[in-house]
C-alpha cells in the first residue's frame, strides 16, 4: 500500500474541500460579513502552520505512523494513550460527516427515504472501498473525484458570472474589523487543520521526503477553492442573504440561469459532492482501522474495518439533531484542533528533538 505524491495531494484537497465549501461559508459570513474571504485566507494560514508541523514531525520518523512513533517516543502506555484522542476525533468526524451528508440528501433529494438507509448505503460502499482498495484504492479514487469536484466548482463559478454584483463585497474591512475577521477565521481553520491526519498518511508515501510540498499544496488548493466559493457567494447573494443560507454554495448553483435554459444544475453538483463525501468517509474508515491495528499491533487491519464501520454508523445514527452537529463541530474546534493538531504534535516534536540530542553529541 503505497501512495504517490499526486495521490496525497488529491486526498488532502478532496477531503478538505468537500466539507468546508458546504459548511463553513455561511458561518464565516455571519461573523465577518463581506470580509469573510479574508477570514478564509487567515484560516488557510493557520491550516498551513498545522500542516507544516505535522508533516515535519512525520518526516522525522520515516515509515512510521503516529501510533508507532508515539509509542517509540513516549513509551508503550503513554504512546497508546496518546492515540486515543485521535481515534475519538476521527470517529466523531466520520460520524458527523456521514450524518450531515445523509441529512442533506434527505432534505433535497430523497425526502421519503429514511435517513438511516441513505447512511447504510454509504457505509456499505465505503466498507467495500476500504477492504478492496485499501489506501491506494482511496488515493486513486481521489485522483478522479478530486479533479471532478474542482472542475464542478470552476464551472459553477463561470456559469454564475452573469449574476455577480460587484458592490456586494464593499465596504472593505470597516463593517467587520480585525476582531470579527479573526473570529470568523477559526472555524474554517479548524477544517483546514483536519490535515493532522497526515501524521499517519505520510508513512505510506512511496517517497516520504517529498511529503511536505504535496501536503502544503493540497491544503493550498483547498484554501483557494473555499476562498473562491466564498467570494462567489458574496458577489451573488451579498453578505445579508448569504449569512441566512444554510448551504450557500448549493444555493449558488441553483441560482445559475443562463438564457432561461441552463438551470437547475444542483443535481449534478450533489452527485459530484457525493463522490467527495464517499472519498472522505472511506479515507477515515481506513485511517481509524489501520491506526487501531498499528497501535494494538494487530497484523490484519482489515478485521478492524468491521469494528470501525458499524461504530461510525452508530455515531451518525445517534446524533439527534442539527444542534448536536453544531455542538460536535464546536468540540472539534475547541478541543480536537488544540489537542490533536497542535498540542500532542508539539509535545512529540519536542521529545523527538530532546531524544536526538545525545546521539548528535
Amino acid at each position, binding site marked *: 500500500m503505497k501512495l504517490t505524491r499526486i495521490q496525497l495531494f488529491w486526498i488532502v484537497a478532496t477531503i478538505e474541500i468537500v466539507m468546508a465549501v458546504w459548511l463553513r461559508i455561511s458561518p464565516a459570513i455571519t461573523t465577518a460579513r463581506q470580509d469573510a474571504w479574508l477570514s478564509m485566507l487567515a484560516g488557510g494560514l493557520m491550516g498551513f502552520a498545522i500542516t507544516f508541523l505535522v508533516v515535519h514531525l512525520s518526516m522525522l520518523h520515516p515509515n512510521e505512523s503516529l501510533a508507532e512513533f508515539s509509542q517509540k517516543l513516549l513509551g508503550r502506555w503513554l504512546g497508546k494513550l496518546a492515540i486515543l484522542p485521535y481515534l475519538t476525533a476521527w470517529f466523531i468526524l466520520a460520524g458527523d460527516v456521514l450524518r450531515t451528508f445523509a441529512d442533506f440528501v434527505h*432534505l*433535497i*433529494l*430523497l*425526502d*421519503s*427515504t429514511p435517513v438511516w438507509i441513505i447512511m447504510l*448505503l454509504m457505509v456499505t460502499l465505503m466498507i467495500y472501498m476500504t477492504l478492496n482498495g485499501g489506501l491506494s484504492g482511496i488515493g486513486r479514487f481521489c485522483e478522479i473525484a478530486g479533479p471532478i469536484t474542482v472542475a464542478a466548482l470552476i464551472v459553477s463559478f463561470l456559469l454564475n458570472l452573469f449574476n455577480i*454584483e460587484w*458592490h*456586494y463585497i*464593499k*465596504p472593505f*474591512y*470597516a*463593517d467587520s474589523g480585525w476582531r470579527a475577521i479573526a473570529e470568523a477565521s477559526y472555524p474554517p481553520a479548524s477544517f483546514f487543520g483536519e490535515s493532522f491526519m497526515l501524521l499517519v498518511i505520510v508513512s505510506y508515501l512511496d517517497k516520504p521526503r517529498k511529503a511536505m510540498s504535496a501536503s502544503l499544496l493540497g491544503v493550498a488548493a483547498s484554501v483557494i477553492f473555499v476562498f473562491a466559493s466564498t467570494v462567489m457567494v458574496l458577489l*451573488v*447573494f*451579498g453578505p*445579508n*442573504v448569504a449569512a*441566512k*443560507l444554510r448551504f450557500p454554495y448549493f*444555493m449558488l448553483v*441553483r*441560482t445559475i*440561469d443562463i438564457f*432561461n435554459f441552463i*438551470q*437547475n444544475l444542483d443535481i449534478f453538483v450533489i452527485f459530484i459532492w457525493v463522490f467527495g463525501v464517499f472519498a472522505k468517509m472511506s479515507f477515515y474508515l481506513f485511517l481509524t482501522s489501520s491506526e487501531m491495528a498499528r497501535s494494538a499491533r494487530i497484523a490484519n487491519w482489515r478485521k478492524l474495518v468491521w469494528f470501525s464501520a458499524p461504530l461510525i454508523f452508530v455515531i451518525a445514527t445517534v446524533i439527534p439533531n442539527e444542534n448536536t452537529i453544531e455542538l460536535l463541530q464546536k468540540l472539534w474546534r475547541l478541543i480536537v484542533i488544540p489537542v490533536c493538531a497542535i498540542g500532542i504534535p508539539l509535545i512529540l516534536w519536542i521529545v523527538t528533538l530532546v531524544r536526538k540530542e545525545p546521539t548528535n553529541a
Partner: protein
Amino acid sequence: MNRTLNVCLIILLLVSVTTGCWNLREPDQLAFIIAAGLDLNDEGQLEIASQIAVPAALSGGENGGGGGGGKKSFVVVSGTGKNVMDAGQNLQAQLPRILFYAHRQTILIGERLAKNGVGSLTDMFIRNPKSEMRSSILVVKGGLAKDVLSVEPTFDPYISTILVREQIAVGMKPYYYRQFLSDALSQAMQPLLPAVALTPGNRYRYAGSAILNKDDNLKLVGYLNAKESAYANWIIGRQTGLSITAPVSPGNEELSLNAKSLSKKLQVDLQDQPRITVMLKGAGIITENNTSLNPTKNNDLKRIEKELSQATQEAVQALVDKVQKQYNTDIFGFGEFIHREYPNRWKTLRPKWNAMFPRLRITVKVELKCKDPGQTNSAIDSML
C-alpha cells in the same frame, strides 16, 4: 459457487437501490407551479393563487389544433391560509397532483397585501428546500395578483415567463427575489419592485415600479410610473436601455434618442450636510427626428445633445425631488453608496439616515451622446 451467489446478491441490491422507486415522483404526478400570487382577500385573509402548467395543452404545439387545441395552457387555483404553505395545503386540496415549486418564475404581490406589508411572508421562498431564488418579484398596481395570473398572454403560454421578459423589453435588468431579499436586509437600500397593472381589456400592462419600505414590514409606500422607474433604475444601475424623447429648439419639435450603454456615477461631498451628485451618461442612436435640425452637422448635433441632456436632467431631478419629498424612501441606494465608499462616516450617519434623506442636496447631471444620427440626415418633412 460462492462468487456467483455474491454477484447475484449485489445485482439484486443494485436493482432495488438504483431505481429509486421508493422515492418515486413522476412528472405526471406533479403540478408545476410557474407563478405564485399573494393577495389579501376581502375578509383580510391571506390568499395564495398559483398558476399551474397544464402540459397536455402544450403538446399540440405551434401547428395549432390537434388533440391539445383549444385547451388552456394553465389553470389558476387559489386558497386562503395563515401563511404561504398553509394556503398551499388549501391549493393542494383542489389538485390531484403534488405541488412542485422548483419551476416558479414569478412572484406577484397584490396591492392590498403590499399596503399591509409583506415582511412576514418572505421566509418560505427561500426556506423551502424545493424553492429557489431565481424567481422574479413584482407588485400588482391597483389590483389582485390572482387576476393578473389569469390573463391569457399573447406570445408565450404563461404570463409568468412574459413578466420576466417584459422587464427586459422595457430596458431593465429583471429584478430577482435574491436581490429583493438583499435590498430588504441591507442597511439603507429600499426595495424598488417592478409593477404591473391590469388594463380594462383584461390584459396586463407594465406600470412602472412600486416602492416598499423595509423599515416598516415592507409596506407599500407608493408607485413610480414607467418613465420615472426607468430614471430610478438608471440611478440604481439596473437600467440597460432607454428611449428618450424631448423637444428641441427652435420650434420645440420632438426628437427621440434610443440610448444604450447607460452608466451612472455618484459623487458624495461629506460635509455636515452631505451633498450628492448623480452623473448619468448614455449614448445611442437618433431614431426619430421631427425638428428642422440636421444631426449629421456638428453644430446641430451638439445642440441636440445639449437640449436632450438638459430635458432629461430636469426630468430625473424632478423624480429625485418627488422621491425625496413625497415618498421619503432611499430607493436609489445613496445610503448604501456612502456605506460602501465612506464606511466610517456612514456609522455616524446611519441612525439618522431616514430623517436626513428628504433633506439631502442631490444634484443630477445628465450627459447624453448621439453616437449615430440614424439612417437619414435632416428630417424628411422639412424637404417636403
